[in-house]
């Protein structure tokens, strides 16, 4: 029981420090242009790395359904830039395909 508290505190510490340091140390207005450019690519790279490969098995034990759902999400988002709409339609498709 006490062990859990110790574990949680240590986990929180090692999780928080990497989250904090860049925000505490980097001054946005004093960055070289190339470094800013590099940082501006990070979100797209992160999204790519979050989707591939984990998203491809986002529905546990069903790669085909996961891929169909991601494709639906991509198509909806291409035509309508509306995250909530894409979310609702894709989740409905995921649910429907699993209940099938």
């Amino acid at each position: 029981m006490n062990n859990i508290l110790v574990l949680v505190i240590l986990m929180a510490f090692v999780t928080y420090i990497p989250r904090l340091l860049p925000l505490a140390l980097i001054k946005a207005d004093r960055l070289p242009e190339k470094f800013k450019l590099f940082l501006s690519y990070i979100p797209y790279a992160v999204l790519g790395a979050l989707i591939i490969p984990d998203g491809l098995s986002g529905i546990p034990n069903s790669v085909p359904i996961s891929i169909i759902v991601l494709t639906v999400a991509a198509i909806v988002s291409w035509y309508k830039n509306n995250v909530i709409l894409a979310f609702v339609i894709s989740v409905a498709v995921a649910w429907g395909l699993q209940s099938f």
Partner: protein
Amino acid sequence: MLEAGKNKKLEKQTISNILMGLKDAFPIMLGYFSVAMAFGLLVKSADLYLKDSVLFSTVVFAGASQFMALNMLINGISVLSIVTATFLVNFRHFIMSASLSSRLLKPRKWQIPFIAFGVTDETFSVVMAREGVLPPVYVMAVSFFSYISWGSGTAAGFLLGSLIPEALGDSLGMGLYVLFMSLLVPEIKKAPRIIWVALTAGILNTVLSYVPLIGSSWSLVFGVIISALLFTFVFPLETEVPNE
């Protein structure tokens, strides 16, 4: 008079930033609630207490690493190993915080620790999809609502088991990947070559996860950094990056 008018305007802005944060956090909240329920249920099945489950979710607030830690705990792995693994899995937030810091609009000193605590894959991706500089209150609002949903979902899962049918729960969890896709696609539409930045990072993440010593905890960090470096220095994109 002038001072009062200024304060009113600021107050209005604060409220609209919070509402914008709530709107953007909405899909995260749905996804988090169902994933957190699964976590709460898992804690219960490991014969731990409600307060343990809520402690994990409210103090650590990092999804994947909580599941990992719990599994390691159940398998009798030492605290030191669990903490080391947690550090490795969560180190990716370092690169996200760095990227976020370049877009924040003059955060106050007291706001920085809160903004930092709220950085997750999902909150980061959502706020960075906004254009231009980011008001700190907006960023904090997105994190706050996501955090509330993560914490309450954990308690709900522990107390009530899975209220949500398994197939719907899995679909809502899948919703987080849908969210990533729906943030990425409009950016690709604006600047098609962004697809190469994302694909390169995804492929590197997959390939590197099989390399000994790198494994799946470092592969995401390396994949993201290598991809961003490649497109900064080796293949600079001709098109403007929309968020610049």
